[in-house]
């Protein structure tokens, strides 16, 4: 079963890319000093592509995702998602997966997964029944009624990912989804996400500070400079997805790309 896009004006993954042209975003910090988070940012995510964005911490990666998601407006430049520029239209094409899972502690796993549907007015029971098949598909069977507190970090991220999928949007915006996990669980979850994206193709913007994670999961990796963030390198990853974690570790091509990315990061 495929997860449907919103009934109103459905957007297909095949037709929904993301483009940012000349984007700048400034914040007014204390005492009138303004901080430039992003400047002259040019970025394109092709429809169905996974674009990894890596950069040092504080380079405006989360800002980038909120801009694309229509939660913020740029101070300069233009952003379009599936050709739509207005913030509410961008928002309707994107599903955000934040760094922390933000699962609601009083809801069980199934109820949390259905939250994105309930946000649009789907009844709780219907939302649960639509989440159920995804639990089977993504290794969550048996955890439907578990509260977040009873789930491991990896399982919580799986539930958060299912919630993101159920939003039914063609574009996924993943904000360091595994940053809070221990190394072993993170590796396991990266493989899981690679397979999940193969099963549920989406246009993906994956932000991370982990070069290896980006190279393993993405078709292309953009390297951002320290603040103000802009793209200093773009690397093609010439391996078909989904990749195998163990093979990727020793792949010479990925090793070369990794060296180039690290060099670009400075």
């Amino acid at each position, binding site marked *: 079963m495929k997860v449907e896009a919103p009934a109103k004006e459905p957007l297909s993954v095949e037709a929904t890319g993301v483009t940012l042209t000349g984007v700048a975003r400034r914040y007014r910090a204390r005492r009138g000093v303004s901080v430039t988070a992003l400047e002259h940012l040019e970025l394109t995510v092709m429809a169905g592509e996974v674009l990894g964005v890596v950069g040092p911490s504080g380079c405006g990666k989360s800002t980038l995702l909120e801009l694309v998601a229509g939660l913020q407006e740029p101070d300069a430049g233009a952003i379009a998602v599936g050709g739509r520029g207005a913030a509410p239209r961008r928002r*309707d094409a994107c599903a955000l997966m934040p760094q922390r899972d933000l699962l*609601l502690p009083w809801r069980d796993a199934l109820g949390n997964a259905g*939250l994105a549907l309930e*946000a*649009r*007015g789907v009844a709780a029971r219907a939302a649960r029944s639509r989440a159920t098949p995804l639990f089977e598909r993504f290794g969550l069977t048996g955890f439907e009624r578990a509260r977040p*507190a009873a789930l491991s970090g990896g399982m919580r991220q799986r539930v958060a990912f299912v919630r993101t999928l159920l939003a039914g949007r063609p574009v996924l915006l993943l904000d360091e989804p595994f940053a809070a996990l221990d190394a072993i669980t993170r590796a396991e979850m990266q493989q899981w996400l690679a397979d999940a994206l193969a099963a549920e193709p989406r246009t993906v913007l994956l932000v991370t500070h982990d070069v290896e994670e980006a190279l393993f999961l993405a078709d292309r990796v953009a390297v951002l400079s320290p603040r103000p963030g802009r793209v200093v390198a773009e690397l093609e990853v010439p391996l078909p997805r989904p990749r195998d974690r163990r093979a990727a570790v020793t792949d010479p091509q990925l090793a070369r790309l990794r060296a180039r990315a690290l060099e670009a990061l400075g």
Partner: protein
Amino acid sequence: MRRAALTVLLLATCVVLWDWVASLDSVDDLTLASPGEVAHAFEDDWGLLWENAWVTLQEVLLGLAVAVVAGVAFAVGMHLSRALRDAAYPLLVGSQAVPIVVLAPIFVLAFDYGMGPKLAIVALICFFPITVNVLDGLRAVDPEQLKLMRSFGASRLRTLRAVELPAALPSFFSGLRVAATVSVIGAVFGEWAGSDAGLGRLVLLGNNQLQTPRVYAGIVILTLMAVALFALASLAERLICPWNRKESPA
């Protein structure tokens, strides 16, 4: 379990101490009734005490109910409207600065002798801790969580219902616990200002009629009532917010 045993032990110590102080020659029987005399009062005046306790309990429960409805509604309103919050918050604080003891007789003038003034006073005392706690709970919701709901396209009211109100439940119960303990005091003030029934009135009359053991019996019941309400609020919290168990102090 161990804590409960310690509480009982402490209580027993207090009673023994009380008994000893009451037996001293220098202590007037009219000032301090001994535990035994109070127990006798319970036996002799059981019907009277029970009848009046029931009246007071009704005042307390109805007053609390009014406070809960008004407090939650007020908190949600202040949460949703910044203008209302800015305008009403000082008034809310001011409402607690008004000396209730002075206000009580005016309420009696306004609402007559019946249930009305007691309800009003209990509600006035109880609505403050509920409003403040619920408002704090609503405002403490993680802004990232709200951002996520916005990205899902959720309306303000849907976010309130699905995220903010459940998140504020533990705070609500904190407020309710405080309200439960002060509610009994409110009812007593209300009865002192003018009434024809209730434990507060019974205690006041008993004082005037030098029926000291009965006064103490009334006080014991009032205290138990407050403790029981507090325990009930804690129990309700545990049943309704099981995810929050580790934070519950009771």
